[in-house]
Structure formats: structure tokens, C-alpha cells
């Protein structure tokens, strides 16, 4: 088991190295010139060239990548003399557009995204698995039909649409909720919660739709398994049979997919964060796209990749733990 975890981890690190190199290469191959972005609009070519040299953009790509990677571990100083800015390790670059170390930008936006992702995840798993289980157990009855309708609507609704409707209904028309304005959890837990309710709900409803269907079908499939019939024939009470035999088997594949979905969300919920004006990773990324802020784009891509790779590794290990058939001896 330890060996399996170790091997998976090494594989994960290798994968991250490849992704980082690839990201770095892709963004450098873009037509926008990073040096040109350093000094505003009416910039003289001499200044651009001087900046290019100063920032190392004239060096070969491999070398640039090398100093970037080094910066992650040792920190890095950008610019020279009086204009020099030092970003301590782990340095993910310096945004000339915002005049800030990328690491500190990410550090300030990540908690927002994490708050959104975590709450939405808990909600959507509760709704998705709960409703899916109900639908499966009451197959053909009205509960099933309601759940199926929910799932169809949820899958087909675009995020921005549902978000706007929620704002209209809950904020503008009824005024039950204030317009979302993010407040740190440690600053004011109540306001934090109130601000996040709507983004949570929107993300949860849209993601839960898929989980309702997956859970329902998974349970119905497992219910036809011979081992469930044997459980029943043993005299197991219905509740215990459903929890220990049916749900246990049906949820294993769902847990693994959920892990990946969660990681994906941690990389930033672009649309949701924009609609609700949440200063998270997604919004940071979106702004960077608009402003061609390459250092930020590289960094947010890397951060998202780290989440996915880590989640993949965790899910693989978890799968081995949950299903004895794939457990490595």
C-alpha cells in the first residue's frame, strides 16, 4: 500500500513537471509580447527592449523556464536596483499589470475560491446523492419524476442564467439576501456565509443534476446484483441492506468522480465568481485573460493543474481503499 502511494506520488510530480513546461511553452508562444506589457501604452521601443533584457525575456525559453522553476523554490527578484521587487519563495512570477507578486495574488484569491468550492461541493453531494437515492428507491413514483425533472433542468441550465435569476429573485425582488460581497471567514463568519449562499446554490444545483442521475442509475444497477438478493435472503433489514450493500457499492464510482469535480472547481469557478463578484481565482484568471497578463495565466493554470493531479492521486488511493478488488497487496 505504501509502495502504491509512493509510486502514485512520484508519477504525480512527474506529470506536474510536464504540465508546467507545456504551459510555459504555450503561453510564450502566444502573439502578445510580455515585454510590451511592462510599460503602458505609449511606450518607446527602446524602453521595451531594455525591459525585455532586464526581465530576461530575451533569454532562451529553457533558461526562462529554469529561472521560473528556481523561483518557486528560492524566491526571485524582478527588476533591478531601485525598481527591484523581491517575491519570496514560492514565487510564481510578477504581474507588471498589477505590480504585485503572483503568489500573493493567488494567496489572496484562493480562500475565496476554496470557500465557494467547499460549500458547493458539500451541498451538491447532499442534494445529488440524496435525491438520486430517493429517486432510485421510489422508482416510477412521483419522487422519481421530480428528481428526474430536476436533473434534466439542472443539466440544461447555463450557470450565468441561473445565477442572474437567483440574484433577481433573492436580492432584487424579495431582498432576502444582500448583494453578495465577499467577506473573509475570519473577519465575519455570518457575512461570509450570507455572501456565499447564492454562489453555493447555483453551483450545487448545476453540478447536482449529474449526480442525481449517476446515483439513481448506480443504485438501480446494484439493486439487481445477486449479492444484494443474497443480503435480502439472509434477513438483513431493508435499511441496512440499502446502506451497507447498495449505497456502499453504488457510491464508490461516484466518490471518485466527485473528487475530480471538486478539484476542478478549486481551480476557479470563472462564471460564478464573475456573476457574484467574488474575488476568487476564477475572476483573477478572467481578468488576466482580458489584460494578457501572462505571469498570472501561467500561475493559475499551474495551480489548477496541481489540484487536478493531487485529486487524481488521492482518488486513486481512495479507490483502492474503498474497493478491495483493486487494492494492491
Amino acid at each position, binding site marked *: 500500500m505504501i509502495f502504491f502511494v509512493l509510486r502514485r506520488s512520484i508519477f504525480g510530480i512527474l506529470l506536474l513537471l510536464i504540465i508546467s513546461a507545456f504551459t510555459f511553452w504555450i503561453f510564450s508562444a502566444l502573439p502578445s509580447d510580455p515585454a510590451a506589457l511592462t510599460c503602458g501604452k505609449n511606450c518607446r521601443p527602446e524602453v521595451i527592449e531594455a525591459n525585455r533584457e532586464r526581465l530576461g525575456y530575451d533569454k532562451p525559453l529553457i533558461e526562462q523556464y529554469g529561472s521560473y522553476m528556481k523561483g518557486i523554490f528560492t524566491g526571485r527578484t524582478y527588476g533591478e536596483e531601485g525598481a527591484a521587487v523581491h517575491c519570496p519563495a514560492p514565487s510564481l512570477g510578477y504581474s507588471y499589470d498589477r505590480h504585485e507578486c503572483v503568489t500573493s495574488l493567488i494567496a489572496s484569491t484562493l480562500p475565496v475560491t476554496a470557500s465557494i468550492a467547499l460549500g458547493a461541493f458539500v451541498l451538491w453531494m447532499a442534494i445529488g446523492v440524496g435525491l438520486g437515492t430517493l429517486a432510485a428507491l421510489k*422508482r*416510477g413514483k412521483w419522487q422519481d419524476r421530480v428528481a428526474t425533472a430536476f436533473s434534466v433542468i439542472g443539466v440544461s441550465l447555463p450557470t450565468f442564467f441561473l445565477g442572474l435569476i437567483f440574484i433577481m429573485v433573492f436580492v432584487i425582488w424579495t431582498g432576502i439576501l444582500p448583494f453578495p460581497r465577499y467577506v473573509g471567514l475570519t473577519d465575519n463568519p455570518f457575512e461570509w456565509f450570507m455572501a456565499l449562499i447564492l454562489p453555493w446554490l447555483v453551483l450545487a444545483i448545476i453540478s447536482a443534476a449529474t449526480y442525481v442521475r449517476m446515483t439513481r442509475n448506480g443504485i*438501480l444497477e446494484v*439493486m*439487481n*446484483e*445477486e*449479492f*444484494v*438478493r*443474497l*443480503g*435480502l*435472503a*439472509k*434477513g*438483513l*433489514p*431493508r435499511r441496512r441492506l440499502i446502506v451497507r*450493500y447498495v449505497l*456502499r*457499492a453504488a457510491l464508490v464510482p461516484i466518490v471518485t468522480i466527485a473528487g475530480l469535480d471538486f478539484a476542478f472547481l478549486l481551480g476557479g469557478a470563472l462564471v460564478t465568481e464573475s456573476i457574484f463578484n467574488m474575488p476568487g481565482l476564477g475572476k483573477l484568471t478572467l481578468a488576466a485573460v482580458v489584460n494578457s497578463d501572462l505571469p498570472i495565466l501561467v500561475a493559475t493554470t499551474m495551480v489548477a493543474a496541481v489540484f487536478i493531479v493531487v485529486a487524481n492521486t488521492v482518488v486513486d488511493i481512495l479507490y483502492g481503499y*474503498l*474497493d*478491495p*478488488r483493486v487494492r494492491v497487496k
Partner: protein
Amino acid sequence: MTLLSVQDLHVTFGTADGAVRAVQGVSFDVEPGETVAIVGESGSGKSVTANSLLRLNFGADVRIDGRILLEGRDILAMDETQIRSVRGREVAMIFQDPLTALNPFYTVGHQIAEAFAIHHPGTPKRELRKIALESLNKVGIPEPSKRIDQYPHEFSGGMRQRIVIAIALVNSPKLLIADEPTTALDVTVQAQILELIAQMQAEHGSAVILITHDLGVVAEITERVMVMYAGRVVESASVADTFLTPTHPYTRGLLKSVKSLDAGRHERLESIPGIPPSLINLPSGCPFHPRCAYAESLGGRCETETPALHLVGSSRSACHLPDERLLGLLGGGV
């Protein structure tokens, strides 16, 4: 006292294509310690009958009518708590496919212990483990103390069927229902499992209902045979009578279809023409008449009138043919 008395059992499934009448008017008795076989091909209703005895048609849209009396108590009239105390304690079941019958997420020891613990709440853990260990030992699993903590996928098909048998017998049930217990197994392993069932039956004194499509298996271990076709019992007789003087054309056809080791080279097999009927659109009258070689000789009677089970010699048969012809089925040609 009769252990199990099934009276006029009807089982109907609702499906998108219409009502499937899987079992129609099946009646039989099982005495304590006795072995009864229910023989039939796919769609005959034999497995549905078996599952209905414990109301295991889980999750399906199903309607069961008639009476299933276990020592006089009607299983169909029981509430959830009552039926639960019957399942696994008084009546246990063995399934066809040992590869899928065990829960892949729990160790085999856990699954055996669970079967005991359900009906003996409060049994200490150490006691449960001892019971599981003994059960594994009894059904012939080598090195039980090592294998008790292994998962089903670490066992071969034959070994898994032994574990399923251990689960079934851990509460010494009065009745064991074995639904095609050897069909999915290799021939040499099949022989082992049949032997084990017979041996366990002798030890626990359980009655056995053996559901099978294989007349060979029937001849080996049972005393009485019921042949089912399209949801009905068409013949019910002792094993000797079934094989030596079958009293239904379908039974005769089945016997003739059995491949024999003594056949000559390229000896032609007698077969039953046609295919089994759809349970949604059953033929009128006798369900077997479209495939029956004798139907024509009775005019149109087989198409209009469903024959009832009646005594023919010492067997019971559901066929319109006169007794003397039924008793001479094996000897005479068509």
C-alpha cells in the same frame, strides 16, 4: 407436519411490454428433510417460484397471489419483521452465480458472521468469528483461519459457492432453496458442490428445493421432481417415475434431449421443435401445444382447454392424452 405448502401460486410482473405471467397456479408440498427438484428451462418460472418463496423479488413491480405456508404460517401475509425472521434463519437460499452472489466489499468471514448475527443479536464478536471459522471449515475451505479475512475476489468459483453454502447453513435452516447451484461451475467442481449440499443436508436435517435445468443433476440427489413449463407445473412425480415413465410429452422431450455418454457416434438427438413461448403472449389452452407432437391427435382440445394436473399411474400430469398413452410415452413413438 408439512414443512412448506405452496397453494395456487401466481406471480405476475408488470413491464413496459405488458404483464409477464411468470408463474400460474403452482402448488406443491415439501416435507421436512425431503429433497424436491423443480426442473425447467429458461422462462419456465422455476427461479421466480424460488424467489417468491422468500419474497425476494426486490424492487420489481410484482404481484404475488396464492398461499405459501411455512409450517402453517402464510409467508405472503407476513409483515416485514416477520418475513425477515424467516429469511436466512428458517429458509435459506443458494444462488446460481457464486461470482456475483457475495458482497465484494466485505471479507467472507464478515459475511458469514453477519448472517448469524442478524438472527442472534448481541452475539459477542469473538463468538461470531469462531462461528465463521467453523463454517468455513465445515464447507471444506482449506486454511480457514487465513482465508476468513480475505475478500470474495480472492477465491475461485467453486470456493465462493462453498462460502455461499456456509452462509446459507450458518443458522441450520429448515429449508434450503438452491437455485441452479452448480450451473456456473466446472463439471468436476459441480460434483464437489452437489456432494457438499447432500452432506450438509444430512447433517442439518434441512429440506432442499433444488431448482435446475439439468435432469442429470436431478437424478443424482433428489427424491421428487416437478417439471415446469411456461409458468405451470406440467408433471410432478418421484425421481424414478419421472425418468422411467414420464407422463408428459414435454418431460419426454427433455429426457430425450439429454446428451448421453453411451450414445453411438453421430447418433441423432431427439429434440423438441420450436422455441419456448413468450410469457406476455402465452398460447391458448395447453402452453406446450405449439411444440407438442401429440397435440394434433387430440383434435383441437389442446388449443382451447388448459389441462389440469391429475393422477396418472403414480405420477401427476397436466396433459389431455389418455392415461394409457401417457404411461407408454417413452416406449412408443409419436
